[in-house]
């Protein structure tokens, strides 16, 4: 049979495809039947947090940080409660990572604070003298892309029924309104908690520095 296949490339290719495809079906599909179930009380990311998640992706923190606490005593002692599937229901994409050059961050919001992050992102060595994490000073001047984050909220609300309020709707005007009423006040709170006047000033002028969005996101990781 195999020798016959080797003379008939079309059937050979079909054979290979069947063998590789059905393993995929069995491996991946069953989990989809159960859909993504958010745990009780889980709220979708705010637009500011989404913007922060984009900063996390852009500066690629996932290169060094995981967001998955495994069920071992050594990990729960270090980082807190082990991670549960339903906590990730709004994570598109998932950001578990595959390497811990730095510590896990899945619950970092519970044991670090905005002012600590402000010190740490500006210069990690100022709080952890031996740190090998790069300083991310550019995040203090770069402006976060709130519009794209808002677009993401609109999209996931529409396409995946992510439970956002009615004020998340398409269009520039809706965005501007939402930004003024929701995003900027939230950002101001974070900026103040970070105890840096330059950040507060920037937010007050209507621009959210990347680091403020990022810290909003990190604070959300609980």
């Amino acid at each position, binding site marked *: 049979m195999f020798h016959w296949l080797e003379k008939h490339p079309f059937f050979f290719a079909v054979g290979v495809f069947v063998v590789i495809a059905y393993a995929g079906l069995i491996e991946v599909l069953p989990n989809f039947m159960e859909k993504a179930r958010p745990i009780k009380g889980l709220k979708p990311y705010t637009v500011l947090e989404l913007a922060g998640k984009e900063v996390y992706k852009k500066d690629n923190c996932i290169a060094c940080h995981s967001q998955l606490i495994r069920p071992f005593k050594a990990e729960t002692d270090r980082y807190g409660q082990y991670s549960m599937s339903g906590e990730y229901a709004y994570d598109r994409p998932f950001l578990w990572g595959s390497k811990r050059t730095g510590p896990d961050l899945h619950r970092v919001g519970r044991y670090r604070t905005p002012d600590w992050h402000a*010190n740490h992102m500006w210069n990690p060595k100022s*709080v952890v003298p031996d740190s090998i994490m790069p300083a991310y000073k550019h995040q203090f001047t770069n402006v976060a892309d709130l519009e794209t984050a808002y677009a993401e909220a609109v999209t996931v609300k529409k396409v995946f029924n992510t439970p956002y309020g009615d004020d998340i709707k398409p269009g520039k005007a809706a965005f501007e309104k939402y930004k003024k009423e929701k995003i900027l006040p939230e950002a101001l709170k974070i900026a103040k908690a970070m105890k840096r006047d330059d950040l507060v000033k920037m937010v007050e002028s209507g621009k959210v520095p990347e680091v403020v969005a990022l810290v909003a996101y990190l604070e959300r990781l609980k």
Partner: protein
Amino acid sequence: MNGMVVKGLVLAGVLIVAILVVVKQMHIDLSDPVNMITFLGAIAIAVLAFGVAAKYMQQMKTDTATGELAEDTWDGIGEYKNDLPAGWAWSFVGVSIWAGWYFLFGYPLNAYSQIGEYNEEVKAYNAKFEAKHKNASPEVLKEMGESIFLVQCAPCHGETGDGMDGKAHDLTHRIAKEQVLYVLKNGSHNFKYPLGAMPAGLAQGKDAEAVAEYVANGLKGKAPAAWATCAGCHGQDGTGNGGQAPNLKAFDATLIHQVLTHGKKGVIGQMPSFVNRFTPVQEKALAEYIKTLSSDKE
């Protein structure tokens, strides 16, 4: 044994010994089952991969290629009709049987839960831990507290507990003047002591200065007049009236428990809550350790 194989195994051996030396330097307990299995795995990888490759390379030295050639050739490449190497074929069969057994009977589909295993492990551990250390001596507690502190608290308070240039509370000292002034100005509602929150404005201007100076200095010397107000809640000696309000003179176990449970927001910044992260014994241990950091004594 022949030369190639010996060389392969020597290479594997050197690597394994190097790992062993480094790991031992870090005081790793290799009798822990997970550590042990990992270590055996590393040995298996190095020995088998280098050993088997070396065995076949040895065959390049000694054997000759034989067998019946197939009819086809491709761009001058021929193919022998040799049989499967027996070791390989039997291993394949054996491993496949093992896999089927493991999946269907050894670790049946729904009979195992990693979370279940975790829960049991932690429960058993905690029970043992609390029982063993219920009446631990201060020395033991202090040592225990130090290691928890270095893992959990040092990123903010610094390894020596000095607060790293004002980034967090300087734990070598009970409280600083500006912190007291801040509380007098803003009140304090962090800890949920029996007396509840402390209202703002209990002392102002010069009085505040004087009382803050006095508290920051460890309540030494003569108390300023305004201290009388404070004494009502914090006690004449400032130690907190038996847990009704914070001890202002020195760190004590109650304060540590309250701050770990509720966190704190003050003039320096914010301290997160560590509620449910530590067992009672661990909290006591932290308190014992923090007491030794500071020169202020009750």
